[in-house]
């Protein structure tokens, strides 16, 4: 059979930074006898086991579901957020895409709005703040009409689902030359603006979420499309166009007034 257990040796050049205020540096670490069936995260596990046994501090990195859906993991690998493989999170990037002897540069997702916590771990709580500002439909539990009361065309439902597929990993921000969070924000704004249930609040939502995005320190969209390219769920920049439309519509045509900065 073709997939017999094959191993490779690679050299990691990995970012080490003890804390948010500390100065970071690259450290060279050898990763030996790495099975090509390992995910990148499992390779880091293997390296960490060795570092631990050698009495050294293991590489700190976030991860959880290890199946590409929770959005916890992420690092910039050889200059690409989540690595060179398209539509793939770091936990689903397999070592079969690397060759024996490769040098692999591993860095955290860098952005002004994402402070480094330790090594490859970053603080992405700014994303929660943006959702908090309007990434919802204001319905309390109880009192919803029957699920089939409002038909929604398959096309609209599909577009909403495409936009809703975002896992909030932050790769779009890390890939963007100006560390913009437009793709992330546009996913939620699109999903909710497309659906009839989300229309009543569409204007307020667009203004409020964009405002918080700005105050969190994310940059402006510069139309490089790097975000779309890095997105593990392949969110399209069509969503950004939709966000812009919603934002301008809200700014020019609605009575909504920009909310006061909640600080």
């Amino acid at each position, binding site marked *: 059979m073709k997939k*017999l*257990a094959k191993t490779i040796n690679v050299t990691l050049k990995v970012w080490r930074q003890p804390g948010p205020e500390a100065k970071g540096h690259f450290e060279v670490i050898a990763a030996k006898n790495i*099975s090509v*069936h*390992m995910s990148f995260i*499992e390779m880091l*596990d*293997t390296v960490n*086991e060795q570092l*631990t*046994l050698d*009495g050294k501090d*293991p590489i*700190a990195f976030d991860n*959880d*579901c*290890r*199946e*590409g*859906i*929770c*959005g*916890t993991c992420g690092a910039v690998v050889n200059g690409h957020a989540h690595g060179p493989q398209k539509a*793939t999170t770091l936990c*689903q990037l*397999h070592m079969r895409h690397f060759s024996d002897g490769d040098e692999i540069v591993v860095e955290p997702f860098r952005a002004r709005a994402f402070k480094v*916590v*330790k090594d490859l771990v970053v603080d*992405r*709580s700014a994303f*929660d703040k943006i*959702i*908090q500002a309007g*990434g*919802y*439909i*204001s*319905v*309390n*539990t109880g009192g919803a*009409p029957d*699920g*089939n009361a409002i*038909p*929604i*065309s*398959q096309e609209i*439902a599909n577009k*909403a*689902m495409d936009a*809703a*597929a975002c*896992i*909030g990993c932050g790769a779009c921000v890390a890939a963007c030359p100006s560390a913009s969070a437009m793709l992330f924000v546009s996913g939620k704004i699109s*999903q*909710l603006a497309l*659906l009839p*249930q*989300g229309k009543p609040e569409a204007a307020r939502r667009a203004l409020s979420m964009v405002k918080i995005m700005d105050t969190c320190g994310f940059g402006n969209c510069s139309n490089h499309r790097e975000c779309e390219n890095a997105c593990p769920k392949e969110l399209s920049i069509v969503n950004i166009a939709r966000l812009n439309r919603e934002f301008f519509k809200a700014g020019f045509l609605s009575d909504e007034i920009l909310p006061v900065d*909640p600080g």
Partner: protein
Amino acid sequence: MQLDAKIPAGPLTDKWDRHRFELKLVNPANKRKFEIIVVGTGLAGASASASLAELGYHVKTFCIQDSPRRAHSIAAQGGINAAKNYTNEGDSIWRLFYDTVKGGDFRAREANVYRLAQLSNLIIDHCVAQGIPFARDYGGLLANRSFGGAQVARTFYARGQTGQQLLLGAYSALMRQVGAGGITLFPRRELLDLVLVNGQARGIVVRNLISGEMERHAADAVVISTGGYGNIYYLSTNAEASNVGAIFRAYKRGAMFANPCFTQIHPTCIPHTGEHQSKLTLMSESLRNDGRVWVPHNPGDIREPQDIPEEDRDYYLEQKYPSFGNLVPRDVASRAAKAQCDNGKGVGLTRCAVYLDFADAIKRDGKDTIAKKYGNLFDMYQLITDDSPYEKPMMIYPASHYTMGGLWVDYNLMSTIPGLFVLGEANFSDHGANRLGASALMQGLADGYFVIPYTIGGYFAGTQLAPVSADDAAFKDASQSATENIAKLMSIKGKRTVDNFARELGQIMWNYCGMSRDDAGLKKALRRIQDLRAEFWENLLVPGTDKDYNKSLEKAGRQADSLEFAELMILDALDRTESCGGHFREESQTEEGEALRDDENFSHVSVWQYAGYGKRPKLHQEPLVFENVELSQRSYK
């Protein structure tokens, strides 16, 4: 001790209505005076946090991840059941209730399950209103599909990411309340102890996973919704952070644990490839709707699947279960796969896999239709294995996926500790000995959106609560002992890493307390666990410090809990000498090798009470009374 499940009187269909009427209410203006701690932000915790805050309670919500959006409910793929009968196939609340009780092999409470079926419809309505992009038919109405163990299509879905979409809905509702000031959010915190004052749950001690600081939080009630303990097997479909810690610490403080041996093995996971592997990836069992399961007829047939002609293939599920075929419940499908592999008919690298073949479905419906239904699952499979299911059958093998056991709760979802409520997978209440597909999401959201908001009010309205502060002695003591425990883990400085211990414990549990169990094996496992635990406290190596982000230290604390909890699972599995649902005792099977229940002796919930470290816990029983369904031997033939 007499366990009172507080099941309301009256006919099954009226119990919940009647109970809601009889529950005392808290005046809206008084709700803001109560503070509630919610631990965990999966479907149950996020929906509970949001709903309680909407009512005016002040909620403090804790999660182990960096954001509540990342809880492991997010990984549920297939869908959520509801008794809407939109498909006109004769579904009803009663049928969903019956299927769930039967699927659980008659080891769940009738009243709880009926309520769950009733609430299922409200969940769909609420989620649609939240903007969840459920799949739709051409006419714009909600689409349904059928799922393992059901003969009607009652499963609602959002592509293959239903859990993600439902969780993000609940997360959005939660974040809306954070913005409105009703919820204070504490991410990257791990519960290390539950604090009782006057016998009531009044707070928690958590560790800040970034700074290592111990934090104390007081409240009027505590809600735990931290999921299950499937990670005890090491290789499972659970996320890295999923762990038994919170419910185990509550157990040690007096919350009794029900049916710990009831675990579910999921039949459709991607087979493992080697030692390095950290988790198993589940493929939604909706795949069994169109995929056909088979192995070669002849053991040791190593031809590529496409080279094996029809007459040399054994479609063993279709053969053995003609009416349910590939859609038999999870435990039946899992054991059947194991039996084939044990007989040498397994396929793939490790010979521990069976085929799930879509060739016929693609021929019948076309590649586009199949891609529309399962495209993302096929992509995921290809990403991991480097094989395309469009061209070659998938390979699957069972893996630990869900745990039906959990903290014992009454009809109000309150544990044996007053003021401690337990929701979702963390409790034991609705799935009996086996959970049906697409029912976990239903239960998590039912508990959080539609049960706890009423029952917690009933508790507050009928309970005297003394004022407490997080500076009280009980809090300081709990915090102190948690700190000492951490220091102990750091100080061992042995030679084995925590992952190494976890792997060994996992292997013991998988081999002796996994898909099938027997007396000798369980006893052997018990001894091995005790030895391993002794070694753990002498030979553990935790790197770094306890003052900053330290994954190894986090895992060490959880592993210490697992090494104790594993013993409880084994004791329960030993005690229950019958087979039922996911609990298969070799000694109790039919001539055809099916699980054989012993209703005479085991028609009860086994409820374990902690008796101190190293002491045998005390076993209590809650008898299960079936007034509305007739106990039958499950047959899916």
